[in-house]
């Protein structure tokens, strides 16, 4: 289940944000390692909602530090 989510997330980050798929691992820090900025974060929430139908609440996204954090939130929604 979480593996599928990680694959989905990796696809989004690769296709829409030009991020190298090899560095999208659960431990990767999205702001530092993946160079996501505050606008990318908004676009990512919107994109994930389009794909999975799940909207990450903004207050929960504030706590997100790593790719694994996003996967964890998505798996509980």
């Amino acid at each position: 289940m979480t593996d599928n989510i990680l694959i989905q997330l990796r696809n989004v980050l690769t296709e829409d944000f030009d991020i190298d798929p090899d560095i999208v691992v659960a431990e990767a820090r999205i702001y530092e390692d993946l160079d996501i900025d505050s606008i990318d974060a908004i676009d990512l929430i919107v994109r994930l909602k389009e794909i999975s139908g799940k909207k990450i609440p903004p207050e929960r996204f504030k706590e997100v530090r790593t790719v694994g954090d996003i996967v964890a939130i998505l798996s509980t929604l």
Partner: protein
Amino acid sequence: MPGSLRSVGLRFRRGASFGWRWIGTALSFAVFGIGSFLLGILIMPLMNLLVRNEERRMRWSRLIVGNAMRFFRFFMNAVGVLRYEISGTEHIRNDRNYLIVANHPSLIDVVFLLAMFPTADCVIKQELREIFWTKHLMKGVGYISNRDPAAWLSDCITRLRAGRSLILFPEGTRTVPGEPLQFKAGAAAVAVRAGVECLPVVITCRPTTLTKAERWYQVPERRVFFSLRVQPPISVGDLCADDIDERQAGRSFNDFLLAYFTTRLAGG
């Protein structure tokens, strides 16, 4: 000893000026407080009750807020708390709408910007829409809330595309004195996506006052001088190559804006 007498006199005059400015500052806060209280719990609730048309209510509320800010600017100048200078207003064309971007050295920037651009939209903290003495005011003026980032971004773009002007502080918060300027990605992304011209306003405030680290009673040792320099509008399209996507365009425009403000602030 005329020399030492003079220095005593000078110190006394400075002390007197400081004392007066302290009183002036306290008065200014009192006027601002009482004014916002009256607006917030008396005038605006009445306005929201009587004027049912949202567009009209917004126009009238902003007219009131803009004039209140002009009065407050006049008051602070009159009691001698600050002096100010505004230049470059010839760059503003009333038949155009802009994304107005300004640096944010002090709490008072908002007073000056709203006095200059009373009809413009701005972004406010969600709390202001919830606290009881500001919520009626915020409902009336209809500013954009920062509650949901995705909604915030699309609201900014929608309103600009509808032909309205919007004020944003790219720093997202007040400047930390002595540290390099830092811009968040938001303002540049809004400019690129909405496709409107950017109107930069370079603000300096010397000595610093009402930064995040200063309380209201920490009155500066000299009278504050505010300068707002409106710059010629920047067309975002001219700066970004056609073959790059929105994301890259936003990032490169943000780099441009940061360098633009850093240079102009260093130039005095």
